[in-house]
């Protein structure tokens, strides 16, 4: 592709050189000698500009020989007799070569400028594509953020009307209306669902705040049982703690650990038959403080053991209703993991399930208590 126009330039300017020479040779006797080098200089510049440096140099040398041979006295000889002719020829050659080089340099600059411009254009295109992609990712992330925000604010804003309905139902209940109690139960159910949604949005946004501190097992167990008293059949929960043995301590976040235990108790109550019991215990196991919630429910099969910790998973044959989004265990596990703990499920001897929460244990030296 590049050779064809290049060869055309050489042929064209070769022919121009021949034509100019023929004309000048024909009028050489009559014309002024000084116009000759200038005319050839024009040819060299023209060839240089269109055909490049090599054509320019070739035309310079050819013109030099032609001028010397045909157009300087003595004609048709390569010898130079007059010093002024020598200077003219030398000047011509230098001018022609320098002009060719300058043109070539200018052309190179222009070419590289064009290449740069193309590069810039290409980069700009790349950049644009990248920007579009970034924009897309940003839009996705923004969408995610919006979704979490909507989840959070909707569940937050729902509390006020829920409060109003609950207050009105309780107001009605005072007059002895049994429907009012049912309304209140449904409000409580809706409230739990809203709380689950809020939890899920926090979980997704990674917005749990943890402040692991020295805490006692008794304290968090007591708080968990207290928080569960509002639940139906909460009287089935039994705390198994040896309060005569030294107290058990661990380094954990009180609030989040409480949430884990409450979630486990809520879950366990669902599978505890009326008349049965749901045991909450704590023990020390090497570097771990272990909380366990044990039920005598139907248990969980090997295949479902890990799946129960997935969000929105419901064990086979479980009652679909229960008013929960099925994320309690998923939240519990992520809260455990986030504070260097572990939450696992084991089959219970004699039937049922044991959920075990392991957290870093701590030892308390009475000398550190600051009592003089």
């Amino acid at each position, binding site marked *: 592709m590049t050779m064809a126009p290049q060869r055309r330039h050489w042929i064209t300017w070769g022919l121009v050189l021949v034509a100019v020479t023929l004309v000048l040779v024909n009028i050489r006797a009559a014309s002024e000698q000084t116009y000759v080098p200038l005319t050839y200089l024009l040819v060299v510049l023209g060839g240089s500009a269109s055909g490049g440096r090599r054509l320019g140099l070739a035309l310079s040398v050819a013109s030099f020989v032609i001028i010397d041979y045909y157009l300087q006295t003595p004609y048709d000889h390569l010898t130079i007799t007059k010093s002024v002719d020598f200077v003219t020829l030398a000047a011509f050659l230098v001018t022609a070569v320098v002009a060719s080089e300058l043109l070539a340099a200018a052309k190179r600059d222009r070419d590289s400028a064009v290449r740069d411009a193309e590069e810039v254009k290409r980069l700009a295109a790349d950049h644009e594509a990248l920007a579009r992609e970034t924009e897309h990712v940003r839009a996705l992330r923004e969408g995610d953020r919006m979704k979490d925000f909507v989840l959070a604010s909707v569940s937050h804003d729902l509390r*006020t009307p829920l409060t*109003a309905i609950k207050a009105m139902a309780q*107001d009605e209940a005072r007059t002895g209306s049994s429907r009012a109690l049912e309304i*209140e139960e449904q409000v409580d159910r809706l*409230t739990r669902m809203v709380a689950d949604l809020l939890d899920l949005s926090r979980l997704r946004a990674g917005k749990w705040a943890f402040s692991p501190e020295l805490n006692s097992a008794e304290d968090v167990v007591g708080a968990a049982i207290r928080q569960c008293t509002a639940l139906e059949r909460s009287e089935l929960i039994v705390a198994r703690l040896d309060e005569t043995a030294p107290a058990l301590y661990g380094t954990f976040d009180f609030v989040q650990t409480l949430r884990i235990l409450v979630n486990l108790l809520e879950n366990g109550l669902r599978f505890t038959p009326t008349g049965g019991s749901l045991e909450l215990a704590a023990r020390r196991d090497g570097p771990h403080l272990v909380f366990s919630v044990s039920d005598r429910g139907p248990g969980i099969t090997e295949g479902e053991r890990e799946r129960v910790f997935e969000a929105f998973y419901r064990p086979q044959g479980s009652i679909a209703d229960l008013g929960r989004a099925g994320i309690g265990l998923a939240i519990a596990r992520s809260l455990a993991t986030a504070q260097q703990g572990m939450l696992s499920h084991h089959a219970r001897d004699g039937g049922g399930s044991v959920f075990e929460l392991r957290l870093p244990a701590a030892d308390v030296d009475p000398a550190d*208590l600051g009592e003089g």
Partner: protein
Amino acid sequence: MVVDDEFQIRRALKNALREVAERVLEAGSGAEGIDLAATHHPDLVVLDLGLPDMAGAEVCREIRRFASMPIVVLSARHSEEDKVSLLSLGADDYVTKPFSTVELLARVKAQLRRARTQLIAPTEAPIVAGDLTFEVGRRSVTKSGEPVRLTPIEWNIVLALVMHAGRTLTHQQLFDAVWGREFGDPQRYLRVHITNLRRKIETSPSSPKYVVTEPGVGYRFEMP
């Protein structure tokens, strides 16, 4: 007095509060609430934080400038930091929406009782809470007539809680009351002291009925 912009909530609360109050004032905005508190000096204020005209915390702070009646806050927020900041702004207790009116009434009664006993109780008289008797002057506690041996820090903790019975003291307020402005390691052990204290004064330390944990916020002494 009830400060809430939702008419339905105001009406339901008014009906519920009639059990404990002769007269219930209503305010539909923060500004109105501050005016009424200044002119009528109610015995207690139930304040919704989600008011349209000004932040509930601001209302709380304004009322505290001229009055010391108990303020029970209704909050739609869940976070423990919010609760801690409200308590340190001068609120006496809070209930998270949606609450049961039974629960709110219990809190209101506890606050009214606390406000009244604070007015009449001479500090030298023994304070009786269930099977516990506190004699402040002698720094002694008895449980069912039997003396309970508390360490100095345990005594300071229980004293701070009892003097503010019914009110949740934040961890910081307890640190200040027990350790003063001293900072450092001993405060790490607040929960250890509470655990030891409960083992001495509670019948069942893992389901305490006197020293109650307010998760992430602090502790509260409940009068049975």
